[in-house]
């Protein structure tokens, strides 16, 4: 028994990561651009394609084919954000819109077709209204509709009901995007989806296993999963309330992380995985925003969090809600049985930590994530770079590792007062000549008189010079100086430095 595939509309924006980058101003329109993920080209612009850049090429090869290629890192947040207006436009005319990934949308065709008077009419309507270049495919099942969109010219292609298999038949098996399988199919002489589809499902299962059987279903114009995805019980929905309402992307994203984790834990506890996720946000003025995200396999906790973040980011930064978000809800729209991770037998972190965390998060939600900072011991040689402040909730990982040896670092005891900006000073020897340090690290004469802010004091003890030539490879953070410890007659000990002939007070030992 074969379940009929659902009539599906797919809207596909080619090279979306590139389009998003252009919209974000990271690249000029028409420039050769490649967006890379994990060192491999994920998408490229038409100009880059002309020079031979292709999906899946390694960065090195891509740059050698196209020397002036603009290489950008994959930025899913931005891609989702810039995609939001597109989704919203479509939503204005159709219901049940699901985002597969930024750049690719699927929806059931039945509703809109009835409303607009036929699928062709829907197609025309969408092509007219969508604000970015895109192509539309209508066919039985998501796979066939996607192929219809991708293989057609603008505006799109409609494959008649029951015609998906026939439509797919002449296309190369490579369309399946399963390289290991297709290389075998080619060698067997099964170069088109049609010839592959003509095999009996039983033979295919025997020879290629479940993964092959799945591809076989797609080739036959059926939906990927024969199993009826279940409608989940309502108690699997999680939600959180914001008071005061959230209107900043970073705060929302921060909240999304925790909610996504709760959502995922809940599903996992029920042994379920989520195929389709609805994200619902309520606003102060009573709007309810909903968006469905669809995925081929079960979504991981991180994947859920990503999608929630993308979505909130999109809503908030593209004139979505007219007021702050007061409530956020995650509902599984389709679930499958999924033997996921179980919770640790002995539980996780302690209650006390939990309470402290909640309190700090609360403060953050009031004042913004950057308002709650905690110090972390960091690496460095100067007095000023041995501590780093990190927003609560972010990984407590300093930029400079404190466990590294940092040869030449200022040793304990550390000065109690570290000046945020070093104070200029003057240092002269007994004859009143300014003290300098040569390129070969020699002091011109012993320091004798220190002048700070007009006050002059006699030097009674000093140590140094301790030369430092740090980060010379990065002009923005480079430091080249010689440090001294200087004790003056008034009993004050200072950490000083001389750089390019000028003296500075860096810190004071109290």
């Amino acid at each position, binding site marked *: 028994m074969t379940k009929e595939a659902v009539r599906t509309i797919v809207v596909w924006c080619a090279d979306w990561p590139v389009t998003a980058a252009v919209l974000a101003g990271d690249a000029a329109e028409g420039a050769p651009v490649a967006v890379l993920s994990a060192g491999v080209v994920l998408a490229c612009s038409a100009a880059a394609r002309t*020079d*031979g850049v292709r999906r899946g090429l390694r*960065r*090195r090869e*891509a*740059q*050698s*084919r196209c*020397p002036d290629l603009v*290489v950008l890192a994959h930025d899913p947040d931005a891609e989702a954000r810039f995609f939001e207006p597109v989704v919203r436009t479509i939503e204005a005319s159709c219901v049940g819109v699901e985002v597969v990934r930024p750049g690719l949308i699927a929806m059931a065709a039945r509703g809109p077709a009835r409303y607009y008077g036929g699928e062709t009419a829907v197609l025309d309507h969408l092509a007219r209204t969508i604000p970015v270049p895109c192509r539309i495919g209508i066919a039985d099942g998501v796979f066939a509709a996607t192929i219809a969109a991708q293989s057609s010219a603008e505006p799109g292609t409609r494959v008649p009901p029951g015609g998906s298999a026939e439509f797919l038949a002449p296309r190369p098996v490579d369309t399946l995007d399963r390289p290991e399988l297709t290389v*075998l199919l080619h*060698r*067997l*002489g*099964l170069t088109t989806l049609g*010839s592959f589809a003509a*095999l*009996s499902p039983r*033979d295919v299962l*025997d*020879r*290629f296993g479940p993964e092959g059987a799945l591809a076989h279903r797609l080739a036959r114009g059926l939906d990927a999963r024969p199993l009826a995805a279940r409608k989940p019980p309502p108690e699997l929905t999680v939600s959180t309330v914001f008071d005061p309402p959230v209107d900043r992307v970073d705060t929302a994203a921060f909240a999304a992380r925790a909610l996504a984790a709760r959502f995922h834990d809940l599903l996992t506890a029920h042994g379920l995985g989520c195929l389709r996720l609805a994200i619902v946000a309520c606003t102060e003025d009573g709007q309810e925003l909903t968006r469905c995200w669809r995925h081929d396999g079960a979504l991981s906790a991180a994947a859920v969090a990503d999608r929630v973040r993308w979505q909130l980011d999109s809503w908030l930064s593209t004139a979505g809600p007219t007021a702050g978000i007061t409530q956020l809800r995650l509902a599984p729209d389709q679930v499958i049985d999924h033997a996921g991770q179980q919770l640790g037998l002995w539980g996780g972190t302690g209650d006390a930590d939990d309470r402290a965390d909640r309190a700090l998060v609360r403060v953050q939600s009031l004042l913004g994530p950057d308002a709650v900072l905690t110090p972390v011991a960091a*690496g460095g*040689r100067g007095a000023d770079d041995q501590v780093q402040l990190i927003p609560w909730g972010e990984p407590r990982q300093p930029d*400079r*590792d404190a466990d*590294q*040896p*940092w*040869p*030449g*670092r*200022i*040793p304990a005891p550390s000065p109690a007062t570290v000046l945020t900006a070093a104070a200029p000073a003057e240092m002269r020897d007994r004859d009143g000549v300014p003290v300098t340090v040569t*390129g*070969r*690290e*020699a002091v011109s004469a012993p320091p004798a008189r220190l002048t700070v802010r007009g006050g002059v004091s006699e030097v009674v003890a000093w*140590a*140094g*010079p*301790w*030369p*430092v*030539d*740090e*980060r*010379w*490879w*990065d002009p923005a953070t480079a430091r080249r100086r010689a*440090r001294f*410890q200087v004790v003056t007659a008034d009993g004050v000990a200072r950490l000083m430095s001389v750089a390019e002939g000028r003296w500075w007070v860096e810190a004071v030992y109290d």
Partner: protein
Amino acid sequence: MGWRNPPTPWSELERILSGRPRTEAQSPGDGNDSPAWTRRRIPFTPTSPRRYVPTQPLYAELHVHSNFSFLDGASYPEDLAETAAELGLSALALTDHDGMYGVVRFAQAAKDLGLPTVFGAELSLGLSMPQNGIADPEGNHLLALARGPEGYRRLCAAISAGQRAGGEKGKPIYDLAALGERAGGHWAVLTGCRKGTVPAALARGGMAAARTALDELIGIFGRENVVVELTDHGGPEDADRVDALVELAEWARLDTVATGNVHYAVPSRGRLAAALASVRARRGLDDMDGWLPAAGSAYLRSGAEMAARFARYPDAVTRAAELGAACAFELALVKPELPVLWPAGETDISYLRRLTMQGALGRYGTPESNPKAYQQLEHELRTIEELKFPGYFLIIKDIVDFCTKEGILCQGRGSAANSAVCYALGVTVVDPVAYELLFERFLAPERAEPPDIDIDIASERREEVIQYVYDTYGRDNAAQVANIITYRPRSAVRDMAKALGYSTGQQDAWSKQIEGWGAHLDNVEHDIPADVLELASQLQGFPRHLGLHSGGMVICDRPVTEVCPVEWARMPNRSVLQWDKDDCADTELVKFDLLGLGMLSALQGMLELIPRYYGETIDLAKLPTNDPATFEMLRAADTVGVFQVESRAQMATLPRLKPKVFYDLACEVALIRPGPIQGGSVHPYIRRRNGSEKITYPHPLLENCLRRTKGIPLFQEQMMHMAIDAASFSPQQADELRRAMDSRRSVQKMEKLKASLYEGMAGNGITGAVADDIYEKLAAFANFGFAESHAISFAYLVYSSAYLKRFYPAAFYAALLNAQPMGFYSPQSLIADARRHGLTVYGPDINLSGAMATLRPAPPDARPTTLGFPGTVEPAIRLGLSSVRRLGKEQAKSVEAERDEHGPFRDMADLARRTGLSTPAIESLATAGAFDGFGLDRRRALWSAGVVATERPDRLAGLGLGADPPTLPDMSPMEQTMADLWSTGISPTSYPTQFLRPRLDSLGVVPAERLRQVADGARVLIGGVVTHRQRPATASGITFMSLEDETGLINVVCSPAVWQRHRRVARESGSLLIRGRLERSDGVVNVVAEQIHKLPLQVPASSRDFR
């Protein structure tokens, strides 16, 4: 001595020979003795030689790392010595990590400067693994200084033992207690840097721990030999540490010395040192920050600077000078002799004479029957005795005997090899008497050169010979010579860009802008950022790591490990000296070159196949001389697969050079090298051979020496003769001149020799422009000379391989396939060439193929072949199972062994069960058609492969799933060809372009073989599979491509403009349609490309590009 392509590029030589104005270019080699490229180190020339007087206060720097501490040290030993002399140090030590890598250069430089030298090493204790890629290397250091030559000897031995004990490269293991014994009081041991056991203990556990560590050192090395080392790099804690160490020394009643723990000569190199540290740790400077020193303070300081720095402990500075004076000595090593190989009661020469005469009987017959040969032998033996070379010949003989006994094909090559003695000993197969090669040209008492015989060995089995040498002479007495791998502009740019945090793509882009390793950073167009450029130009030429010389081995009568430390190479079971060939030469260690040669493996294969399938036995020493049919084939450039003369460039020259006798091949080998040919010049020699240019001599005096090469010097030996004849130089002077020119030794020396050359020429009435002309020719050739003696040995391989191709083609091609990878052509092109000569080729078959390619009786309907003996039928070639993708040589052999033992395979399930081959391997076999014998077509077999693979050796038979394949589309011949190419890289019965022929015909495409009939200058359309893309550095941006179709090969020349315009298609498409103009000269046809299009043919890309 070996194959040397020198600083003068070929284009320059050609310019001089043809009398054109000067252009600038440079192309040094890689320092190895490979046939194509090698270069010699330019000896150190001090910039300001003068009488050396140290300055007050006296100070000797005793802790110094040069760049031979490999990525930990940022100055050459020479630079350190020079700076030390400028600073007026009283002595300088060199203490690189675990070795004596730089001592020869260091000693030479210091000797020239008059600077006293101390030799030592910093030993790494407690390494659990090689430390490259680790930010902070583990373990402790021990700084040992030799107190004199005996201490040096013991230190080398100790390092060798430690390296040996570690069992792998870069991981020496020393037993601290045993080191005391090895030192025997001949070392001064310093407590070292922060990684020394004592300072490390101090930092970790305070004074108590430090005392324990110091006590341990005293217990092992003796109180009088342990010195507490004080180093102050100006860190906040350095002064405190120095105080603590001084206190410790007082407690232990030991002396202290001040050192600089020097890693570079001058402060400005500190940043390069930091960049090197991050290269060593395999991370960017950003990630290395926390381990880098705070500033570049590890430079050489003068006595005055040290006195100021250690003002509180002035004695420590004075004592450094005293210890330096006590330890200093000049590195003059006792040269080991060659091992004794003659029996008791005989002498080396009497034994050599006996062996020679024994061999001569077989090669030359009796003295009565061949008096000329015996006369020659007597003469040579006298010379060998006079030169004290018998021991050298005996070792060569011993190695060759081992090869003969084991059935390993080998051949001697080099000046001494072209002797009747070597022929009699079986070292070579070229009879110098028959070929009239004058011994004097190669070996004469006047020539001060060390003996020179390289042994070329079938590359597949060279390892056995190397291991034989280790086993026979001992690991201590025999070691391979190192090749110091140095930074070239490209690698320097790449590594520095990486350290500075630029992306891989940028590193690639920049290093690509410097094409070829001959380029210099300052004369290439590039957009490399200044920071990268600055570091990279400092880094250029730095030693990067120790590699293996291609085949050089030093063999001694006593442990060479006491002369130079020996360590493990990356290759298993290879131990290698820490010195390169120049260091060995400077210390007069005799090197034997055991080189692997793919063609000898192939020839060996042919010699094994011929008796089995032709019923004849071939002795390479007894091939007919100057066989006309063979030379006819060579003149027609029908030389795919033939040694040395198969490349596009070489094939283009054969029809012009028109070789007729063996000696012509030697000329061809010397002349037609990739460099010269790609220089794009029609060489004056060819013009003269063909009579289009008059044979003239620069001066009548040179006629005698240049006559046999038409007035053009071709060989290195000739250039020495020119100096002798024109300027009445003595042979020693001529040799000195060659070496001076060759290595661009000191300018003064060159000037002196030049003066006496001109003087000598003037004495013979040669002055003015003629003298200048001769001088220029000499200078050019000194660098380019390809030794005639080597050319002759190679020429014999050209001749042998050509002869076997001409008469035993099936064996020839099969053996070439089995010796892959080697040569210029892919297996597909070799087989296509075989088919074009009418040979039959079968694909692999599971029951009929061996692991390797074999010969089978030809089918009854076989076409006649255009090669082979007329009237005989050539066997067919059956591809081996190892040619099948995903089936390695080992697996193929085990399949063959299983079949030999238990009979043929009954079906695929039987195969799977008996061999346990993986599913992908069986699938590949199916696609290659190896199961055709089971009556299964390839696709049905491929389907079944997935299912039968459930049959495993450890399961019961027949339990696998049923394997009844569904109906699958039939294969077209084109698809079959593609399946062949996919699975074996070879299409045995067809060439992919032949299926497109009707379409190509309709487009007006001219097949390769018909190009010969097209008029010169005509516009043609050609098409085929790309087999090669080459852009020689010397051809000013021109790209050469070779296209192949079912009828032959086509040369395509592509100008930079055309390449640029079509580069995407030209570079990426496996097959091309090219429109262009046909150019023909002397029977050589090129197509000059004008337009390049893709040819729609789905061949897997397999061209050999830009190698």
